[in-house]
């Protein structure tokens, strides 16, 4: 029942609502809501009892206004420096170049213990010795790389660098470069074969 009544009432309540609202909003200063009667009576009593103080309260205080104008809010913030850069003992890296693969595929050690040799150095002395044995003798190698003589002799006996042959005419297909008379022959496995047709008859 209440629903029906409010349905009837609502159009009348909302009549001309928009223009009434605009009228109130467009006012310069809002009209204060009326006070309760008891409050209104009390205010009037105070005004009658001490009118001077009341007048002073309404007036604008120049001194206080001046003080207020001198108040400013400022902010100061320190810019923080990164702490790591000042560390002398452990400075940050400055080199930003990219990593390159070592030539021989392994990073070469800075310190080589006695009796050992790096791969590039080994290749170097093997090449030099076989190119010119008198100039790069076993004794010379032992002295230079601090190696035992027996080991150096064995290395030079068993390891050699390759001689490179490039075919003169590169347009032809690769030629077989092995020995002309093969010492070894390619062996092909013989597999059992399936007979085609009739099975063999035993004789």
């Amino acid at each position: 029942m209440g629903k029906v009544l409010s349905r009837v009432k609502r159009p009348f309540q909302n009549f001309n609502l928009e223009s009434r609202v605009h009228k109130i909003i467009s006012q310069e200063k809002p009209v204060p809501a009326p006070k309760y009667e008891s409050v209104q009576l009390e205010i009037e009593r105070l005004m009658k009892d001490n009118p001077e103080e009341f007048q002073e309260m309404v007036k604008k205080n120049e001194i206080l206004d001046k003080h207020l104008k001198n108040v400013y809010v400022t902010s100061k913030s320190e810019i923080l420096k990164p702490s790591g850069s000042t560390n002398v003992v452990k400075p940050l890296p400055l080199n930003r170049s990219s990593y390159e693969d070592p030539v021989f595929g392994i990073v070469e050690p800075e310190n080589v213990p006695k009796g050992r040799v790096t791969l590039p150095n080994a290749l170097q002395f093997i090449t030099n010795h076989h190119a010119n044995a008198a100039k790069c003798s076993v004794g010379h190698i032992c002295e230079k790389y601090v190696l035992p003589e027996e080991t150096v002799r064995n290395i030079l006996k068993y390891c050699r660098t390759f001689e490179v042959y490039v075919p003169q005419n590169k347009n032809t297909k690769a030629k077989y470069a092995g020995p002309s008379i093969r010492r070894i022959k390619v062996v092909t496995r013989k597999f059992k074969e399936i007979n085609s047709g009739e099975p063999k008859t035993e004789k």
Partner: protein
Amino acid sequence: MYSNPLLKVAKKAVINPVSSILKRTIYRSTIRKCYDGGQERTTATILNKEEDLGLMIDGYSEVGFRLNNNVTVLGSMLIFPRSVLSWTVDDIKDVSDESLALLTIIEPKIDIIVIGTGDKMDNVSYSHHIFHFLRKCNLSVEILPTAQACPTFNFLNSEGRFVVGAMIPPKTILASDDDILRMKLRYQNLYELND
């Protein structure tokens, strides 16, 4: 009995339910689940063709090896990640303390040595001495027939390990038809008559 094809279909229609006849007459094709239009294709990379992975062995024969930088090496070799040395050893029985001397003094220490023995051998007594000697030098070693040693070396090298291959060419090769065809393709024109 039913010589007319129409009669055959009519008979089927009577005997079989409708759905089975539809299945027979309508061509169905399903989208294969394993291939999703090229979004995620299965790819294969061949290690020997990757240039920055280092030196690898492409093939072996009874006289030597072919490397992936188009160099054919004759005889036994000591192959390092990016360099190769000739090794004057003809047979696995020649492999001794003396012929392995270079590997024991190289700094930094070699991660693994792969020895290719040539042919597969039933008598493995030769390996005891090699194992004993290299263990004394604190080196790890893998002794395999050359056929298996070559791919082992390639794989270890592609992983970036400091691997050294000591390879002796095998004396007998079991060649398949495919191997022979590939060899012919490399050395001669297939469609030309040989003199």
